[in-house]
């Protein structure tokens, strides 16, 4: 129900798997690589994840969403490794009897993925520099 993968994400297969005779709504969220971040021009990204913990915690998020929102189906995948602009970094697919739960559940899953999974993003900029996102304090060299 949740996986990290180095391969390009297969949207059609994920959407296909969400088809369910009980469902009246399918919602898909696709997070894609944009070419800018805080005013800087981004060339490409690299994602790194701790697979054992990320997959375990990711499955908990998806299972929790199925119960909480009464879903017919839910699945999510997150890409790791090198990604180019416009590629998909993450896809969440849910199906439910009605659209309200489907939208809410999809939003819930992507928000939890961002907050709870050990995944890190490194941006490579057009000026030749690179930086880990959201971890400005990570750099070495603490001095008083």
């Amino acid at each position, binding site marked *: 129900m949740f996986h990290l993968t180095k391969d390009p994400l297969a949207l059609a297969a994920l959407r296909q798997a969400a088809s369910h005779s009980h469902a009246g709504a399918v919602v898909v969220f696709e*997070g894609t690589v944009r070419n800018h971040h805080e005013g800087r021009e981004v060339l490409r990204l690299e994602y790194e994840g701790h697979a054992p913990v990320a997959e375990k915690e990711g499955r908990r998020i998806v299972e929790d969403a199925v119960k909480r929102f009464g879903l017919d189906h839910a699945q999510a995948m997150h890409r790791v490794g090198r990604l180019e602009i416009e590629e998909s970094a993450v896809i969440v697919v849910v199906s439910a009897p009605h659209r309200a739960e489907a939208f809410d559940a999809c939003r819930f899953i992507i928000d939890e993925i*961002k907050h709870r999974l*050990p*995944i890190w993003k490194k941006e490579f900029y057009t000026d030749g520099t690179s930086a880990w996102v*959201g971890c400005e304090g990570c750099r*070495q060299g603490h001095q008083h």
Partner: protein
Amino acid sequence: MSAPLHGLLLAGGKSRRMGTDKAELVVEGNLSLRDRGLQILRRVTTSAQLSIAADDTRPYESTTVRDLREDAGPLAGLEAAFQLDPNAAWLVMACDLPFLTESVLEDLIARRDPACDVTCFTSRFDGKPEPLCTIYEPSAAAPLTAALDNEIRCARKFLSAVRRHELSLPEETALDNCNRPEDLAEARLSLSEGRTTKTITVEFCGPLQEAAGTASAEIETQSSTAAGLWEELRMAHHFSLELEAIRVAINEEFQPWTHPLAHRDRVALFPPFAGG
């Protein structure tokens, strides 16, 4: 002829990260860190004073030295002590050192060099001189006041600029301190169960891998909890992130920092997440 040696127990800190006055904590036995520290200092010096903040109005049984400046850190306590007796040397001891014993102070005193400004131990974590279990000779008083007038608050920085007699610690963990509830849990477990050497596989994840220069390492540690291990690694690798910013997984499950470590555990260190 060396100057007489007085003791100064630093108890004027804000204990911000602990959230409660560190000096009042009981880590082992029935004495608070303040009473335990004073007891040890009294045994090895001619007299011991309790260093308190400028605005501290609480009554104390022991004699106190009040800071002359507000919120200026541990150096302000020493400045006030030198004002009380500029002809004495001061053995300064932080109150949050539950592993520090009388025999370690006796060792410091036995190897004291009054020709230097300070006699101090070096950190087991990064090898730098430690300012808060240290003998300050009368010659340290003038540079101390100058440093404080120049807004220098960091005791380690001050120490780096004076003449030092540096000693290695006779007991490796004697200066492990307690800043947070997690450090307190580490100290309590280590003191009650005793420290044992464990082999741990550490994974430095995401940005930490670059800072550490390696993705994983097998290390020997005496730490009892994940928090103790992080403190060791943080100092050894000069990580600028504090424990609050990091999450830890042990054997592939998220755990609180107070989680005890076992031999052969696999510890993954997670800097702030940025998935999605």
